[in-house]
C-alpha cells in the first residue's frame, strides 16, 4: 500500500480579489450612477452621478481581469 501524497488545500482568495462578487458590486455602482444621472428628483444625486459612474467603470475594468 503506497501512501497518497497530501492534497494541497486550495487557498481561498479573499473576497475583494474574486471576480464574481466584485464585478457585481461594480455593476451595481454603474447602474446606480446611471440612475442618478437621469433621475428627475434631486440635483445632488445628479451632481454625484459622475463620480459613482467613474468609480463603477474603473472598478469593473480592473476586477474583470481577476480570476474566478
Amino acid at each position, binding site marked *: 500500500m503506497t501512501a497518497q501524497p497530501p492534497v494541497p488545500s486550495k487557498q481561498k482568495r479573499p473576497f475583494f480579489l474574486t471576480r464574481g462578487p466584485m464585478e457585481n458590486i461594480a455593476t451595481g455602482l454603474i447602474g446606480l450612477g*446611471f440612475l442618478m444621472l*437621469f433621475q428627475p428628483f434631486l*440635483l445632488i444625486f*445628479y451632481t454625484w*452621478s*459622475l463620480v459613482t*459612474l*467613474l468609480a463603477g*467603470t474603473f472598478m*469593473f475594468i480592473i476586477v474583470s481581469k481577476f480570476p474566478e
Partner: protein
Amino acid sequence: MTARIRKRTGQFFRMRRFKTQVKSVTDTSSTILGEAVARATPAPIASRIRGLSDRSMAWLFITPAIALLLAVNIFPLIWAIYLSFTNFRANRPNAALESVGFSNYSRVLNDPNIWQAMQTTAHFVFWTILLQTLIGFSLAYLIDRKFRGHAFWTTIILVPMMLSPAVVGNFWRFLYQPQIGLFNHIVSFLTGIPPSSFEMLGSVRLSPWAIIIVDTWMWTPYVMLICLAGLRSIPDYIYEAAEVDRASLWRQFWSITLPMALPFIMLAVLFRGIENFKMFDMVTLLTGGGPGSTTEVASITLKREAFESWRTGRASAFAIILFVAVFGLANIYVKALNKVKQR
C-alpha cells in the same frame, strides 16, 4: 456476406484514392497560384518582405488600420478630455489655453438646465427603445411565419430605415402640419377631434411624443431585422420536439422562441440605446429643441454650449460625462448579454 464485405471494402479504398487524388490536385493548383503571385510581386518589395517573420508581417498588415483608428477615434477622445480641463472657446482658437481643473465638470453637474436635458434624453431613449423593441419583435414574429408575400412585405417594412434622416425629418414636418398634414387628419378621422385643434410639433405636451413617433417609425425595421435573424436561427427540430410533447403555442413562445431570440433582442436594444443617446439630426429637423426647451436632448444642449455659447471646454466636459455614462452602461449590458448567451 463475405462478398458484400469485400465489395464495401473495395468501395472504401476507391473513395479514399479518389480523395487523395483530389487533394493532390488542389494542393498543386494552390502551389502554382502561390508561385504565380510571388513571381508577380515586384522584386524590391519581394526582397524586403522575404526577410520578415510571420509576426512582423501581421503587424505590417494591421498597422494602417490601427493608425486610422488612433487618428479618427482615439485622438479626438483624448483631445476632448484635455479640452474639458481648459477654458477653450472654439470662436477664439488662438487664445492661450488656461487650465481650469475640474471646474467645467462641476458646472455641468450643477446646472439645472443640463440636468433637464438629461431627463429629456432619458424620456426619449426609454420610450423609443420600448416601442421599437415591442413593435420590431412583433413584426419579426409575423414575418417569420412565412406567409404568402412575406418577402415583399419585409422589403416594404425596411424602407424607412433606408431613408436619410434629413428626408425623414422634412417629410414628417409636412405630415405633422395642423392644417394639411396627413397625421393630424388620420388622428381626426380616428378620434373625431378637429385636425387643426392640436399641433404635434408646437405643443409642449405633444412635441416629445412627435419625435418618439418618428424615431420609432424609422428604426423599428432595424430592430425587426435583428430579431428576425434571431428567430430564423432557431432550429425547427426544437419546435417539432415541443409539438411531440404537446406544448401549446403560448408555451412554445415563452420556453423556446423568446429565450433563444433574447441575445438578438438585447443586441438590438444595445445598438439602438447607444444611437438614441446621441440623437441629434431628427430633433434638430423636427423641433430644433423647442418649443422652449421641451425637446432639448443632451446632444442639442452640447452643441449649443460648444458652438452658440462658445463654452467649448465645458461642452467637452459634458461630452465626456455622456461618454462615461454610455460606456459604463454598455459594459454591464455586454456582461448581461454574455450571461444570456451562456444559458
